[in-house]
Structures are given as structure tokens and as C-alpha cells.
């Protein structure tokens, strides 16, 4: 596999009993928090995180160190840390592995982050479906509290920190940070207008830092190794540091979650980590790179960046899937790295059926506050249903694009962009397939089930 990288975040995965405090401690967990809380100042901690240049792992890729710097609490404010474990973006299944396989490292991250940002209270918001992960976390919290690591005097300091889980109850939109805050306050999970951003006015009207589970779980590694050394694991240089979790699902032999340096290529993810395509006779047709909201890539589409100052010039003429996976490189490619969890599709798949499956998801999950999103997502579903069933019109592909375009930039939160971008991406990359479906439908109207027969056979 990839040259000389040894896992950092996942090094305790698979150790028997790693979810218990005794085993976790034996493998080094809580030593960093002890040092952070007893010996380091908030500024020192924030500095290391900044040097690590960790880009938020929840989808938007915002540098965590910069976000923490937005805090400017007044004397009467109480700062809160909220950890986003909603993990609902289709194709994304990485945070769950942290919560279940190494919960104490996540708690250690929460303790360090609380100290760094001046918070005394932290909520880990976990989607309701992950009841088993919540049980594991609650047990870990109880153990750490009994040991005195969480509570009034963590590690003997006079810096009280409380950590609680908070269960969602089924709603994708609660992953959006302001919807999450409303849900945490006991309300419907409807996003809020920004500004004010959570760092200024978040949960219970107090300054709040919202970070993804993986972002927080990597904080102990950053402090332990030092920001610079941690950042240097990345193959993409100083602006996008470290290692991260890559997910891979769909038509590959070994779907799963793998830790690798920032900046491996999609081809490596599929071939080296994912074990190659599920069915050797059916090559890769397209890959959704980072959760369902990110525009699809095609292996037969080449990077067009002849200008020397183009950020992708080094990959000019190469396949899209040979560009290193990073926040900036993927943006330049016209897609997004998102949650870094790829959905791999082989040649058995019709992209109109893919669009139909995904748009049904968005149509179902739109919270309904904003008209362009509520109505637009519904229209996309109706149009695609018609198309797939062979009742489409010549003008439908253009109409799909028009509806999607009208959703962008016209709503409170980024859900509408997350719906429109993959829709537009599918049309852009596979126009012929949409034109053809508008004429003749997609035939089967269902995905090929033969994958099911291959699953047992895969290594």
C-alpha cells in the first residue's frame, strides 16, 4: 500500500476493548489531554491547531484553527463546544467508526478543544439512528467522569469540563450547523440565517464552536505530534494538513473506512484501498467523491489546465481521478472534497437513475423553510421520475438544469447548493444519458441487483 505511512488517528482501531478506558489509557489516550490541561495555555493549543492546518472534516473544509480564532466572547458569555456527529450525508460513514472504535480519543479531543477555546461544556450531537454509538459514548463519558477526567477538576485542574451526548431523531438537515443548534435547543431542526455565525451567537445565544467528530478526534494527534509534524503528513503541503479518513462504498471489492495522508488520488483510493472494482468486467464509470452533495468525476475526463498558473496545471491532460484529493484541488476541479467519502459506480449504472435516487433523498430531506429548496427539490424528483419512466420531453434536461440553477444562492442554508450541485454535475458529465432518457426512459428503472450476488464472493 502507500509508501511509509502509518496510521495515527486509527491506530487503536481493532484493539480489543479499545472502547474501555483501561485499554484506551494503556494505549496512550488521555496523556495528551493531561498535558494540555495541566501544562499548556489556550493560545499554545490554538497555535498548534493552526499550524496543523486541519481543514474541517464535516464537508466545507474550513480551517479549524481559523474558526477558533473567530471567538471573541464578552465577560458575560459562556463559550460552548458542539461536536457534529450527525453524519447524514449519503455515502458518509466515517465518524461512526471513531465514536464506536475509539470513543475515548474523541473525548480527549473534546477536553483539549474545550480548554483551547475557553469552553466548559461540550455537547456531542449524534444522529438518532446511531443509538449504538451513543451507548458506547455515554459509557465512555461515565467512565471518564468516574476517573475524574471529565467533571469539576479534570486531571486535578480547576478547569471544569462537562461533556454530554445529545441524540437527534432522524433529519439530515440537522447536520447543518445552525439547524443542529436549533435541534439541540429542543426545536425543529430548521437552519438559521447567518450572520450571526455560531462563533458569535450560537447555541443558547452564546458563542459556539461547531466542529465535526473527525476534526475534534484529530486534535489530540496534532497536539501530540506538534502542528508542523502533523501537517507534514499531507502530500498537499501546508494549507491542507495531516492525515484523514477516506470512505469508499459502492462498486468496489473492499468498501470501508481507511486512514491515509491528505492528497492521495481517487485512483489510489479505489485500487489500493478499495481493492479495485467489484466486478472485474465492469470498469469505473463515475465516482461521487465526497458525499452525495459533491459533483461526480469521470475517469475518462481529462484535466484541462494548460495555463501555467492554473492550480491544476501539474495534472494537465491527466484523468480527473489522478488529481490529489484536497480541499483546494477538488474545488479547482469543479467539485468538492466534502466528507471525503466516495461512492463508486461501474458501467452497469445509468446516471439518470443515480440522479433520481439522490434527488429523492433531497426532496425528502428539505426542511421546507425556503421555497426554492422545498419546491425545487420536489420538481427535480418529478422531472426525473417522468424521464426514467419514459414520459420525458426533449426540453427536460434543460429544465432540470434551470430548476437546479434557481435553487442556488436563494436559500437560508447550503442544502439547496448541496442538491443543485450534484444534479448539475451529473448533467454536465453525462449529458448524453439525460438526453437519451428524456427520449426513451432508463429501461429497467432499478439498479442492477447482481452486485448482491458478488458481495459474499468479495474478499
Amino acid at each position, binding site marked *: 500500500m502507500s509508501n511509509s505511512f502509518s496510521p495515527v488517528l486509527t491506530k487503536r482501531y481493532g484493539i480489543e476493548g479499545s472502547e474501555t478506558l483501561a485499554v484506551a489509557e494503556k494505549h496512550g489516550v488521555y496523556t495528551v489531554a493531561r498535558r494540555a490541561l495541566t501544562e499548556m495555555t489556550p493560545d499554545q493549543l490554538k497555535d498548534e491547531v493552526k499550524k496543523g492546518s486541519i481543514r474541517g472534516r464535516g464537508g466545507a473544509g474550513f480551517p479549524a484553527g481559523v474558526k477558533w480564532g473567530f471567538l471573541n466572547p464578552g465577560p458575560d458569555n459562556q463559550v460552548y463546544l458542539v461536536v457534529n456527529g450527525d453524519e447524514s450525508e449519503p455515502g458518509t460513514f466515517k465518524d461512526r467508526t471513531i465514536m464506536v472504535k475509539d470513543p475515548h480519543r474523541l473525548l480527549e479531543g473534546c477536553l483539549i478543544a474545550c480548554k483551547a477555546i475557553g469552553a466548559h461544556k461540550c455537547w456531542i450531537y449524534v444522529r438518532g439512528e446511531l443509538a449504538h454509538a451513543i451507548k458506547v459514548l455515554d459509557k465512555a463519558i461515565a467512565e471518564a467522569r468516574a476517573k475524574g477526567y471529565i467533571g469539576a477538576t479534570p486531571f486535578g485542574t480547576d478547569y471544569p469540563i462537562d461533556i454530554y451526548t445529545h441524540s437527534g431523531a432522524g433529519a439530515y438537515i440537522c447536520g447543518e450547523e445552525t439547524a443542529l443548534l436549533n435541534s439541540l435547543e429542543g*426545536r425543529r431542526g430548521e437552519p438559521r440565517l447567518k450572520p450571526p455565525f455560531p462563533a458569535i451567537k450560537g447555541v443558547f445565544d452564546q458563542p459556539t464552536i461547531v466542529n465535526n467528530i473527525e476534526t475534534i478526534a484529530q486534535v489530540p494527534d496534532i497536539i501530540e505530534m506538534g502542528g508542523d509534524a502533523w501537517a507534514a503528513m499531507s502530500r498537499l503541503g501546508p494549507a491542507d494538513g495531516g492525515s484523514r479518513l477516506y470512505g469508499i462504498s459502492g462498486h468496489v471489492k473492499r468498501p470501508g473506512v481507511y486512514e491515509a495522508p491528505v492528497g492521495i488520488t481517487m485512483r489510489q483510493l479505489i485500487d489500493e484501498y478499495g481493492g479495485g472494482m467489484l466486478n472485474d468486467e465492469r470498469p469505473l464509470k463515475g465516482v461521487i467523491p465526497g458525499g452525495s452533495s459533491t459533483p461526480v468525476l469521470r475517469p475518462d475526463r481529462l484535466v484541462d489546465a494548460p495555463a501555467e498558473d492554473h492550480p491544476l496545471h501539474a495534472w494537465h491532460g491527466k484523468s480527473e481521478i489522478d488529481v490529489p484529493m484536497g480541499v483546494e484541488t477538488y474545488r479547482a476541479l469543479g467539485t468538492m472534497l466534502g466528507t471525503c467519502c466516495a461512492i463508486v459506480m461501474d458501467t452497469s449504472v445509468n446516471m439518470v437513475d443515480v440522479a433520481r*435516487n439522490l434527488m429523492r433523498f433531497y426532496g425528502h430531506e428539505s426542511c421546507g423553510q425556503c421555497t426554492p429548496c422545498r419546491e425545487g427539490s420536489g420538481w427535480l424528483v418529478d422531472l426525473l421520475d417522468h424521464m426514467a419512466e419514459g414520459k420525458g420531453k426533449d426540453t427536460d434536461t434543460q429544465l432540470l438544469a434551470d430548476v437546479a440553477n434557481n435553487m442556488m444562492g436563494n436559500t437560508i442554508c447550503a442544502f439547496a447548493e448541496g442538491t443543485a450541485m450534484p444534479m448539475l454535475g451529473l448533467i454536465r458529465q453525462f449529458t448524453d444519458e439525460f438526453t437519451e432518457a428524456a427520449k426513451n426512459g432508463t429501461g429497467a428503472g432499478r439498479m442492477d441487483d447482481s452486485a448482491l450476488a458478488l458481495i459474499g464472493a468479495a474478499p
Partner: protein
Amino acid sequence: MAFQLSPEQTREADEIIARYPTKRAACLPLLWLCQRQTGWTNDEVIAFVAEKLELSTAAVKGVVTFYTMFHEKKVAPNVVWVCRTLSCELRGAKAVQEHMEKRFGCSAGGTSTDGKFTLLKAECLAACGQAPMIQVNDDYYEDLTIEKLDAVLDQIAAKTPEGK
């Protein structure tokens, strides 16, 4: 009859409320606590939570209707969610659903003829790498084949008492 929590659950509820700076914030956790006892979130539960948190019933009802996991109708002792989102669909989720519909004698949204299972369609459950998968109550069953699915359901059915 008005809904009540046991003395032990009441202590748990009070402990939960104390975690938050506002009473309202305990709304979701309390609804969960109640639903775990009754199996579904009926009007008595809503009235109970509203009174406990000093909210209007409309406010609590608004919360309940927003989230798909609060059951507004009675469900069987085993709620089966079948994920139909893309990663699962690519690996045969539709066949998994159809097999259960045949086995249960009901379509998605309904309850099996023996009253033991309610079948519901789910959106991505964050187990895409273990597709296809289903959730039964709190537990995930992953990397399913039809044989594995039947074995799982047989086992759960055997543990579930007869009668509706």
C-alpha cells in the same frame, strides 16, 4: 390515561433537564425517553413532555412531526428500516426491501401479518461501506445477502412474543 414515567425514569428525566441552560432543550431527550417506554409518541406523551418542560403542546407536536424517528402511529415491537440511498442501492437494497415485503406480507410503511415487524424505508444510515444494510430498533445489520437477512429476521422473530 395520562402518560407517566416510572420514579426511576423521572429521576433520569430531571437529571437530563439539569444538563441544559433551558428546559426546552430537554425536549428531544425526553421524547426519546417516553417513546422508549410506550413504543410510539402519541398525544399523551406530547402533553406530558409539554407540561414537564413548560411548553405548549403545539411546540412539542411541531418537534415531533419534524423528526422521522418519532413514531406518530403505533408500530410493531420491531421497527425495520431498510436503507434505500445510493450506496446501498448500488449493492442490492431494492432486492432486500422486496424480499422483506414478501416475507412480511406488507409493503414499506406497513406491519407484518404476524404483527412482529413494521417495515420502513430509510435514507442513508451512515453504514454505506457495509451495504446493503437494515436497522432493527437500535441495531444495524450489515453486509447483507438474502440468506443473511433471513437468518437475522428469523432470530429476531423467535425472540419476539406472539400477539399484536
